[in-house]
């Protein structure tokens, strides 16, 4: 295990920002997606692991701070020189002498930005700049905290495609904090779901999906016809405009599929939808809490 968290509590004044009671472990080579709404404790968790905030409890790891790399929500640099100079100092190398770095710069199509100063970069270019240096660190554990926040849809999509492509087939251990479910679906194989500083769910994405959603789900528009067609099936919690229908097994799935096709209903099938899984995990978490 790279890291184990036991009985962690982070407080800001009187307010508990994060409370982890059951042990959580991050294994080597795992890609952990941390998800939750604002104030869930995602960034607090990253800061606690990086030693940037005080906490009670234990974070057990053999990793030294310099063996962890982190892309924080805000990453600022001096504005007095071209970013090539900053990059060369941080990485203790020279761009023209380092083939690996050149490859990464080309991969992110960043070459023409090197002579610019940091404030002259666009939002996406600023993120790429830090990502390139983070990737060059080759840390044992890398954190990406809201890498795409503040970026427009197209830039966000392109950046994520690049990151997914870069990490494909590699064995880097990642912790990816994001608001965007689709980003985690592409990058993470484990999910840590936080809400109001508590751990709602933690485990492999497919296992969590089976626990909270079943074998597969069908997502349809939420209207009277669709509700009527699917009334004999189990429906899950979902955003108001959608109807999420759960199937326990293949037989049930075939049956629902036949109905939907016969009635020419548009639908999306998924066995890894993190958004629906999160909504239902959260509901069950609080329902169990109320029962207790």
């Amino acid at each position, binding site marked *: 295990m790279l890291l184990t968290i036991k009985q962690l509590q982070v407080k800001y004044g009187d307010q508990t920002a994060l409370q982890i009671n059951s042990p959580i472990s991050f294994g080597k080579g795992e890609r952990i997606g941390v998800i939750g709404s604002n104030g869930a404790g995602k960034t607090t968790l990253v800061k606690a692991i990086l030693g940037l905030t005080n906490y009670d409890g234990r974070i057990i790891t053999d990793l030294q701070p*310099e063996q962890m790399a982190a892309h924080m929500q*805000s990453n*600022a*640099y001096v504005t007095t020189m071209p970013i090539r100079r900053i990059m060369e*100092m*941080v990485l203790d190398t020279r761009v023209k002498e380092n083939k690996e770095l050149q490859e990464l710069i080309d991969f992110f199509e960043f070459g023409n930005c090197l002579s610019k100063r940091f404030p002259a970069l666009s939002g996406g270019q600023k993120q790429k700049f830090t990502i390139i240096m983070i990737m060059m660190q080759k840390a044992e554990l890398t954190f990406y905290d809201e890498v795409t926040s503040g970026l427009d849809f197209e830039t966000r999509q392109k950046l994520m495609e690049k990151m997914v492509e870069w990490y494909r087939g590699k064995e880097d251990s990642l912790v990816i904090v994001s608001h965007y479910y689709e980003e985690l679906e592409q990058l993470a194989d484990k999910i840590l779901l936080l809400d109001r500083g508590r751990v709602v769910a933690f485990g492999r994405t497919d296992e969590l999906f089976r626990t909270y959603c079943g074998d597969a789900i069908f997502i349809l528009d939420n209207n009277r016809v669709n509700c009527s067609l699917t009334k004999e099936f189990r429906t899950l919690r979902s955003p108001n405009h959608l109807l999420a229908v759960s199937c326990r097994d293949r037989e049930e799935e075939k049956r629902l599929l036949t109905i939907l096709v016969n009635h020419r209903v548009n639908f999306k099938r998924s066995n890894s939808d993190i958004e629906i899984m999160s909504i239902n995990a959260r509901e069950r978490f609080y329902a169990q809490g109320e029962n207790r």
Partner: protein
Amino acid sequence: MKQKRCNWKMVLYELRNINGNFMTHFFGIVFPSMMTLIFSKTIGIQVPEAARDKVLVSIVLSMSLVIPMSIMFIGYGALYSQEVEHEVPLRMRLFGFRERNLLAAKIIAHMILMTAAFAIFAVFQMITMDIPKPAASSVICLLVSLYLIGIILLVIAHSLADIFRKFGITFGITMSVYFLLMVLTGMMGISTEQLPKALQKVAATLPMTYVSNDFADFWTGGSYNFMPFIQSLLFFGAIAGILLMYAQYRNRRT
């Protein structure tokens, strides 16, 4: 990634960083030479011939103090407070740089710039002013004093930036302190003896007062009682140390 130690690349980076700050160059290099020229042409010609050499030396010594005060205090304070405000030191820490290594690189880079500023200042004085040739020991004493004062001022500016964490506040405070120090230590044309008694006592705790007022006495050689000057240096250093400790306490993990 290994933890980064202070190396020449970090020093070069800090030199480039300083190079991008116009205020450091103007106040640290142009301003002292310009002021020396103005004071020597205005005050210098008003004094009798017999006292002129000593007055000109005093002006040069006073203006040489502007170099560490501008580069290490005003310039550094302005540059570093902007970094702190934008959390650049945190970003560097996450890249494996320790604060003490970054501070060491900053001090070395600023000392290199200060050395260049002294050289330019000296050449400028040699060309434009006719002052007596100093004794080698006096030059060494002056340079050591100026470097020590400069390091202490840099630590104070660093601490103020870490305490207030805003460029505007830090710059306002360093500028106010800068002009206050200039008035108290006789660098603004008012000698320390002309100040009220209470302010004279305050001035006596500042090492700049001794450089500005007394160092002219042994410019061409001779003896001087360094004890009050050393005591003021220790006092000034202690203030810097206390401020640095307070800044670290304030910025401890919460």
